[in-house]
């Protein structure tokens, strides 16, 4: 029973990890949190819901979702995050926090206004359970975890091995020095935001696929899990974010098994406090992180 739950926890953490790496990449490169990040998943999911109900076949539906998500992410970056770079000190931190919270409120409630503030069935579902070696595994979560793993490996290679990845790391370490070296920092930042938006969009689709439904406010719990995973893993570290996500998945599974499903959120909070008390820099501390 416990093993079964732990397996589910690990599989569910794939989606959390996708959100966590998005938060951590944006934080790493700009030193700000995009509080509207998880709401991009809502945009992608509802774009698919709309496109399918409007009669599009899967491929164009996904394209519509990609365009909507990336477009909106770039608007959020331009309106809510970039202006913060004018400021120095506390204001540079507060301004994007406030602005992206505002942007998130707008996205959630526009979705609620159009589709109704309720749970909506996702057109593509994989609710079936399959039996693997005596364990019942949700087909959707299995695919989610697989997709997440593939994406995370690709991301790690992209950041670690490619010239674009080198540019990202340069801007993250020191934007001014990167600029002097001839890197177009704005372009790198915009590209990073687009990349994380794509990941969030995929995560939104996977949520719909695995659980069978989506809701305008579903970004909030995923935002919290992604943020907590990022912090307990160590801000600015991709592997830390993944480690944090797996930890949250496992803790949630254990809390559900022993204490009941309502205690899930309390357990996540307890883990956050415990990790911050012991290792304030997170489990994998990155010296370069701001």
């Amino acid at each position, binding site marked *: 029973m416990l093993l079964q739950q732990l397996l589910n926890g690990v599989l569910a953490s794939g989606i959390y990890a996708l959100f966590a790496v998005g938060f951590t990449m944006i934080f790493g490169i700009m030193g700000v949190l995009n509080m509207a990040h998880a709401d991009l998943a809502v945009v992608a999911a509802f774009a698919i819901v709309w496109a399918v109900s409007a009669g599009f076949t899967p491929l164009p539906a996904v394209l519509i979702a990609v365009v909507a998500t990336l477009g909106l992410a770039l608007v959020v970056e331009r309106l809510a995050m970039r*202006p913060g770079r004018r400021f120095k000190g506390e204001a540079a931190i507060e301004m994007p926090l406030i602005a992206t919270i505002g942007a998130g409120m707008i996205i959630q409630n526009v979705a609620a206004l159009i589709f109704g503030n309720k749970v909506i069935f996702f057109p593509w579902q994989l609710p079936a359970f399959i039996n693997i070696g005596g364990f019942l595994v949700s087909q959707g979560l299995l695919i989610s975890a697989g997709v997440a793993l593939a994406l995370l490996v690709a991301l790690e290679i992209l950041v670690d091995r490619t010239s674009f990845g080198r540019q990202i790391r340069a801007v993250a370490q020191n934007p001014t020095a990167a600029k002097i070296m001839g890197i177009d920092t704005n372009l790198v930042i915009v590209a990073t935001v687009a990349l994380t938006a794509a990941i969030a969009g995929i995560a939104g689709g996977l949520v719909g696929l695995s659980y069978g439904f989506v809701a305008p406010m579903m970004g909030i719990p995923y935002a919290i899990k992604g943020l907590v995973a990022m912090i307990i893993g160590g801000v600015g570290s991709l592997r830390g974010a993944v480690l944090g996500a797996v930890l949250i998945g496992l803790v949630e599974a254990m809390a559900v098994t022993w204490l009941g499903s*309502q205690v899930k959120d309390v357990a996540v909070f307890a883990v956050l406090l415990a990790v911050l008390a012991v290792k304030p820099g997170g489990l994998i501390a990155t010296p370069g992180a701001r």
Partner: protein
Amino acid sequence: MDFWLTVFLSASIAAIAAIGLFLQIRSGQMNVGMAVFVGVGGYVSGALGVHLGLPPALTVPVAVAAGFLFGAAFSALTLRLHHWFFAVTTLTLSVAAVSGVGRIGIIGGALGLTGIPFLTHAVPILAALVVTFSLAWWIDRSTVGLAIRATGDDEVLAQVFGVRVRLLRVLVFGIGSAMAALSGALHAHRFGVYQPSDLGFHTSLLLFVYVIVGGKTSVWGPLVGTFFLHLMPELVKISPEAELIVFGLLMLLVAVAMPDGVAGAFSKGIQMLRGGRNRAGEAEISKF
């Protein structure tokens, strides 16, 4: 008339918590989970009334004291956290509290605490608002207020200038939480019920919005913000979703263009009207 009194009293109760949140934000502690600290007051005062039969006049002060202790303890535990980390921790607390409180049977569990003794008269509520505002005004104007601002602006620099940053953070957060608890207790006695969902993200977010949109650079900010955002939706009559879209747009606008919020823009406008000529004169002089 009755309707507007109801709206006015709701705004007054919310403003008490918003003023407390203003002090916390001023000291650099971005609390995005204020509803939990409000809830401490609501549940403490409510549970004492329900289980011991004590009148609000006795239980509200106890709730305020509990709010101070809870806030100070939370702040002391999270002293090492800054900015984002503090914000995320409070946000997580707010979400966790909803399900956590729902498990505690003595305060009503998931259904909420019901049968709380009523206190619906307008006078105590307005008196509480006046006292809270005056206290915050006095703190903000005193040298302590200067130290709070310095801490919020740059903690290390404040420390260099001899501000006892850690003590100040804990005390200010405690006082802000005490104000929140007062607000929660009044809310509980006004409606006779307190529910776990009152501690959640939505309530926390709204309080945060009131302070930010009102302006976080003057005590008038949370007051103006709370009343403005309570009255505006009633005057315009829009759906709750549309209301939150407008709030979101206001947050964007304040963040990008008017960091002093609605109250700041208002006082700037008055200044311009008063000293418009002087300014023109200055501009004239600066040409030479």
